[in-house]
């Protein structure tokens, strides 16, 4: 049984129900024989239990992590696992609170900042999600993904200012990686919306029409290159052309 669990761990399987079945038996009947392995097995089973919503096992795991932290309060892994348990149980506000506390101490933990931004996005608190991404962009100025995600959050917040900001960050993401399709589409969408807004000056409108047109041509090109040699993708190319055309109408 131990070997089964190890195999699943190594291959990163998420066959949660089976893990819980095997793991529960192993822990209940044979705990004493597991030795050092016991911790990693507990963890594997706990993650699986959360997937299957076995809250009882999750509760046990929580107690274990608490005891680890009592002995060693700087054990960041245990702290983060506890937060994951909260998230998996749907206790988002608590997870958010704990994560914020954690980040006050461990301000350089990027994984944690990213997790927090995701939690905020799921709660539709875009302003706070943006703040997390700003932290990430500051410490990782060359990471095109953070720029692009920031653009998406700003775009979702909406309003002219946010759309212009979004456009700038999508452009920045493209500068860092000119093959980031999300950034390209994002640039196109945000520039189009700004150009179509009745509140902008003629110059701003003209500039954004230019940005959008540039993005559109890049998008078309990317699709042409992807579709080369594949008969089925011709459909997609045409759909893209139509989409670009339909947005042109709204801009003028």
């Amino acid at each position, binding site marked *: 049984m131990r070997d089964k669990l190890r195999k699943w761990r190594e291959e990163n399987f998420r066959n949660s129900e089976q893990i819980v079945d095997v793991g529960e038996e192993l822990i209940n009947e044979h705990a004493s024989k597991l030795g050092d392995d016991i911790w990693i097995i507990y963890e594997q089973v706990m993650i699986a239990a959360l997937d299957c919503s076995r809250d009882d096992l999750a509760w046990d795991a929580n107690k274990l992590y608490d005891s680890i932290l009592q002995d060693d309060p700087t054990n960041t892994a245990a702290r983060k696992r506890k937060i994951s348990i909260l998230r998996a149980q749907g206790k988002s506000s608590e997870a958010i609170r704990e994560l914020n506390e954690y980040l006050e101490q461990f301000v350089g933990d990027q994984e944690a900042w990213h997790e927090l931004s995701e939690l905020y996005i799921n709660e539709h608190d875009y302003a706070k999600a943006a703040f997390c991404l700003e932290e990430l962009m500051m410490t990782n100025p060359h990471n095109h993904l953070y720029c692009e995600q920031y653009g998406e959050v700003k775009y*979702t917040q909406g309003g002219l200012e946010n759309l212009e900001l979004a456009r700038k960050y999508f452009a920045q993401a493209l500068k860092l990686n000119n093959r980031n399709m999300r950034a390209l589409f994002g640039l196109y969408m945000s520039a189009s919306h700004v150009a179509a807004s009745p509140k902008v000056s003629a110059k701003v409108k003209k500039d954004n029409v230019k940005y959008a047109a540039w993005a559109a041509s890049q998008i078309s090109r990317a699709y042409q290159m992807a579709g080369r040699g594949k008969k089925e993708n011709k459909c997609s190319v045409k759909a893209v052309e139509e989409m670009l055309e*339909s947005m042109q109408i709204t801009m003028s």
Partner: protein
Amino acid sequence: RTYFFSYCKMLLHAAKYPHCAVNGLLVAEKHKKKDSPRDSVLCVDCVPLFHGALALAPMLEVALTLIDAWCKENKYVIAGYYQANERIKEARPNQVAEKVAARISENFSEAAMIMLDNSRFTMDCFVPVLFIYDHHDNKWKCREPSTDCFEDWIEAQKITAALLESKSYESLVDFDNHLDDLRNDWTNPEINKSVLHLC
């Protein structure tokens, strides 16, 4: 009503990303007979959209516009929206689901919103794992569960179980995968072929 293409792909999408929320669109044939009863909308296909963070706007807008254009070419119409939440016990529609479904119903009054019931999701697919919601008086109301909403439930069950068993979901392409690499085809022709093969 749901044709087995749509059902299979919805479940494959959820199976591919068991630890994430997933969502997607359902498409129906545009042409409808005049004298047909209200619920004779047949969802002939589905397009898996995203996994993970569903609450961001720009890529959703891109997807809706692009898929709409594709629909027009193929005489389809976007007829519904499906979503599987991140957590097993959570099967209620959230803000994202209601917003997207509402937008779809602006263009197609008989649009349906489908929530997958993660807790009943098994490899054998003995029961349909959907909650279907219809738009009435500005609210989404859940239909009585039954297999009537399937064109052919036995076929759907058999095919979906076979595809899950063979881990076909590993090759399922959603719009997120497409954005990662444009060569990934969100119409999933390979899966469609497998489904036809199993019929």
